[in-house]
């Protein structure tokens, strides 16, 4: 299935966070000689326990262009020095000046932002990086935080965040919300219609949705959304059935979510399906929906047991409409574990995208 929608939009917050994690891994594994343990993965900006002693240094590297945003590295004093020592290969006895620590942290932020840009953004337009700068905690308020990763270092901790400027242009997350609402409303319409009732106030809401879809279609030049808006109009006018509209909406929802390109051949289908079932199991076992922060060691340990044991109970399929965030979150957290299991290499796309197979696609993998 082609993935035309994602290609023109910024990735959703969860997927962007997955790219950020990959970028941090790449920079730290090649340029920073220290052990960084991921201890928190956060989409909504909950408190960072590891940094409770206070942020001593905050380095920001902004990117500009077709979309704008920033990567922010916030460290406590020990964390900043640990990163600087890891980059400069300085011994613990060697004293570093505050300027050396700042410079190293800025360069680290520069590389993380550059790698994120290369991995996640360059296919979406033209972008350029700004020089690193240092800010007071909380200064970057004009941006919308998309998520943060918190790492515990040998000494200290660092929070690495990705922010986006608020723009009028719809993002994948907005579109997903819109389609979810549309699906819910259409279902409600259908229920009322079957019960012999009129749409009532829902007519007005449906009209608003139609307007939003048209505006999104205009900004994104997406034929799919034009078709959707037209389908809404036709249905409201009684020219086509509700079932047909529901199918159109569902098709758009499937398009919005990345397809499981990770399963290019029957030889790897088993792995892909197994991973997907692990995600489903975790979602159910841990009741992830609604949680903004994962119990990382617990969740990954559970995933590891499932991967090793290969005993995966039949739990049905993840509902791509009702539970997308949970799947994305677990996918991000699992990505390092899948690396260790030797499975990630067969996927070829970030794990954050593996969440959203439609039910019939999952069944087709059996």
């Amino acid at each position, binding site marked *: 299935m082609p993935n035309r929608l994602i290609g023109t939009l910024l990735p959703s917050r969860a997927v962007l966070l997955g790219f950020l994690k990959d970028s941090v891994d*790449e*920079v730290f594994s*090649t*340029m920073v000689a220290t052990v960084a343990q991921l201890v928190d993965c956060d989409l909504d900006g909950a408190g960072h326990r590891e940094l409770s002693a206070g942020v001593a240094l905050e380095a920001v590297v902004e990117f500009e262009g077709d979309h704008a945003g920033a990567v922010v590295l916030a460290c406590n004093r020990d964390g900043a020095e640990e990163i*600087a020592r890891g*980059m*400069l*290969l300085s011994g613990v006895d060697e004293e570093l000046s505050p*300027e*050396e620590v700042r*410079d*190293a942290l*800025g*360069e680290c932020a*520069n*590389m993380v*932002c*550059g*790698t994120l*840009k*290369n991995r996640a953004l*360059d296919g979406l337009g*033209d*972008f*350029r*990086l700004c*020089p690193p700068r240092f800010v007071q905690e909380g200064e970057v308020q004009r941006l919308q935080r998309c998520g943060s990763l918190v790492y515990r270092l040998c000494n200290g901790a660092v929070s690495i965040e990705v922010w986006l400027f608020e723009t009028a242009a719809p993002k994948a997350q907005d579109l997903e919300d819109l389609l979810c609402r549309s699906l819910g409303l259409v279902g409600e319409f259908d229920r009322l219609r079957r019960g012999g009732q009129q749409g009532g106030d829902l007519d007005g809401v449906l009209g608003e949705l139609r307007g939003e879809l048209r505006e999104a279609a205009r900004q994104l030049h997406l034929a799919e959304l034009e078709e959707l808006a037209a389908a809404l109009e036709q249905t409201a006018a009684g020219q086509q059935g509700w079932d047909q509209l529901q199918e159109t909406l569902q098709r758009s929802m499937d398009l919005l979510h990345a397809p499981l390109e990770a399963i290019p051949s029957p030889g790897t289908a088993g792995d892909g399906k197994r991973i997907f079932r692990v995600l489903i199991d975790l979602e159910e076992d841990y009741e992830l929906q609604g949680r903004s922060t994962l119990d990382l060691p617990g969740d990954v340990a559970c995933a590891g047991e499932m991967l090793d044991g290969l005993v995966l109970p039949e739990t049905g399929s993840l509902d791509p409409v009702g539970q997308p965030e949970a799947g994305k979150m677990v996918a991000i957290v699992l990505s390092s574990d899948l690396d260790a299991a030797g499975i990630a290499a067969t996927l070829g796309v970030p794990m954050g995208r593996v969440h959203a197979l439609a039910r019939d696609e999952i069944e087709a993998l059996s």
Partner: protein
Amino acid sequence: MDKHKILLVDDSSTMRKILRTCLQQALGDGFCALEAADGASALQQLREHPEVCLVLSDLNMPDMDGIAMLEAIRASATAARIPVVMVSAESSQSRRASALDAGADGYIAKPFTVDSVLLALSPFLAKIDAQ
């Protein structure tokens, strides 16, 4: 024997030190690193040290960036033939192309490993060794 002079241009002192360490691993004590924090200082260093045999330069720098510096080097009567390898956290095709169009001889994307730096520099280091 005179040491080979290599000019490292980056506004980050951390990155200059990392590059120096990489070169140390490849060339031992057989080189001397000159440093500059921006394009204008780099051009000044080249005027003062015409014997420089290789330039490693950042792309994004304040005041005079890597591309502007590179164009000035290529337009220079004395330094035009010095190999220049750009080093940048931006590795998009368009950024690489603009650097190569401006006359860069190579491009190293950050983050890098010592091995990848040595691989990118090997043609130039071999020439230096042969001199």
